């Protein structure tokens, strides 16, 4: 975590809060159109349980998400049909975003941000819920209408995903 100005932090924090709210309110379309850049990279690599000496266990070949704006668009379109059974009735999600850290900035108006995400997911009448834990490594770009997500790496703390599908965004 690098030294950063409170101003930058505040700008970044506000963006992440707005984004999380849109996702929890199932506004996938607005999320895509107001928070995401055209050239976004949206990645969730598969993680293996490996020995300490062999690093974090994230794969650079296998992914749960390896999205472009186009593939995100298709996912959102699907949700907009009346046949997206997996999310209708929708999951009740809550994105708990903590440990927001501005990790660096660079010349072309981009800023790197890390945050911890605890995703609470409840479905149907099931009293038990799914909890997903991850670190998110984002690159945000400052565009005319403010910050947008240029890149997101979702680094799961799971080697086996404990929810029945990944039909929600992180």
């Amino acid at each position: 975590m690098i030294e950063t100005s409170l101003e930058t932090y505040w700008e970044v924090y506000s963006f992440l809060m707005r984004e999380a709210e849109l996702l929890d309110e199932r506004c996938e379309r607005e999320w895509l159109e107001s928070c995401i850049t055209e050239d976004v990279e949206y990645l969730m690599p598969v993680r293996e349980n490996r020995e300490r000496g062999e690093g974090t266990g994230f794969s650079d070949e296998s992914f749960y998400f390896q999205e472009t704006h186009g593939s995100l668009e298709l996912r959102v379109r699907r949700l907009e049909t009346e046949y997206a059974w997996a999310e209708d009735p929708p999951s009740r999600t809550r994105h708990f975003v903590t440990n927001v850290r501005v990790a660096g900035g660079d010349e072309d108006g981009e800023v790197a941000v890390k945050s911890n995400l605890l995703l609470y997911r409840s479905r149907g009448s099931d009293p038990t819920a799914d909890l997903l834990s991850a670190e998110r490594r984002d690159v945000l770009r400052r565009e005319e209408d403010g910050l947008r997500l240029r890149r997101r790496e979702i680094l799961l703390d799971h080697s086996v995903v404990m929810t029945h599908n990944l039909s929600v965004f992180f």
Partner: protein
Amino acid sequence: MIEETRAQETYEVLREAKRALDEESKLLAKVYNEPAIFEMEAQKIFQKTWVFLAHESEIPWPGDYVLRRIIDDSFIVARDEDGQIHVLFNMCRHRGMQLCRSDAGNASHFRCPYHGYTYKNTGKLNGVPFQKEAYGPEGLDKDEWAMTPAPKVGIYEGMIFASLDGDVQPLEEHIGDMGWYLDFYLKKSSAGMEVVGPPQRWVMHADWKLASENFIGDGYHTQSTHMSTIKAGIMRVKSPAYLKDGVQILAGSHGCLFMGFKPGSYFNYPQSIVDSMKESLNEDQVALIEENSVLPLNATIFPNTSLLHSSMSIEPGGRSVPYVTLRVWQPMGPGKMEVWSWCLVEKDAPEDFKRASNRSYLSTFGASGTLEQDDAENWSGTTRVAAGAMSGSHYLNYSAGAGQVDPIPEDEWAGPGTAYPKNYIDFAQRHFWQTYFDHLMA
């Protein structure tokens, strides 16, 4: 340890269920979710037949290993220094500690943390700390105390299987006629197939059989379950009924489903792969593809391994990109499974195609897949409502095509097994359940 009486009563229920299936094409819903039945499945199926563990390309180099399971039994699948593959029960022979605790890696030896016994990746006991002090001048009999290999191991076209029953029939016999159809997935390239990285793994509160029966021949569900992907332009088909026509195959304990493609399009495979495919498949197989413009879509190898051959669009309006996925429906308990899912690509395919193919796969049939999601919703919903008492007398309809559709005459179909000229029929699914009952009641 399921005890006799309980097994006996479960047996009675199953016998009547089998009768209803054979005579009335009906299935008792209870089999989807019942602890006593699950215990029998563990014993009569997963401890008896062949179960898929890993693909050879996951451990290409000497010393490579992956950790796999058959329900609760952990196995190390390792390639030794001579390239030989071993499937070893992951329990130390001394005090039973889990020898290997990482999902994958490369190691010539496995050292037990508890007291330090070390074993070669062949399973051979290699080192015992302070052996003379502990076991006397002769020390331990290294052969008697080697790691326990899986009772039976077999490899079919790169697919590594194991069986907990030493007397299981040879793998070749188990695959049998299905081999002719598996070729379309596994021999699409003369260079062979390889996995794209480690498998996706996720937990589903659904019964493993629902997935197996779906993949063996449920062409019918696509027009409803996957409608959203058609509307969204992910599945590029002319009509929701795109899968109505096709061919349903029963082969040995297994089966698959053929889907047509626009003549000459070959699922949009790069020409180089199409050529490679025609080269590596045999005459009859090539003829079938060329004349009928069909390829096998989904397949299930009994009991819990499935393959899918598909082609989907990754970008709005984009051309669909073909892929093959291999998956295991790993039972975790009654009404619960762990899904293991791999993407297979042709070793000699262009790198950019491999990447695109993997993306096409993960966005449609990975855990986040737009088609997979809705299958999961169906299977978990079915499992949920089957948990109670009502499903004990609730019979389901498996009669599609029964008494209506005849097999394709042998001389009109080059492949082995039995072929039916349609897809909206339940022959393959009934066949799955007949095989299932035969095992349970053996």
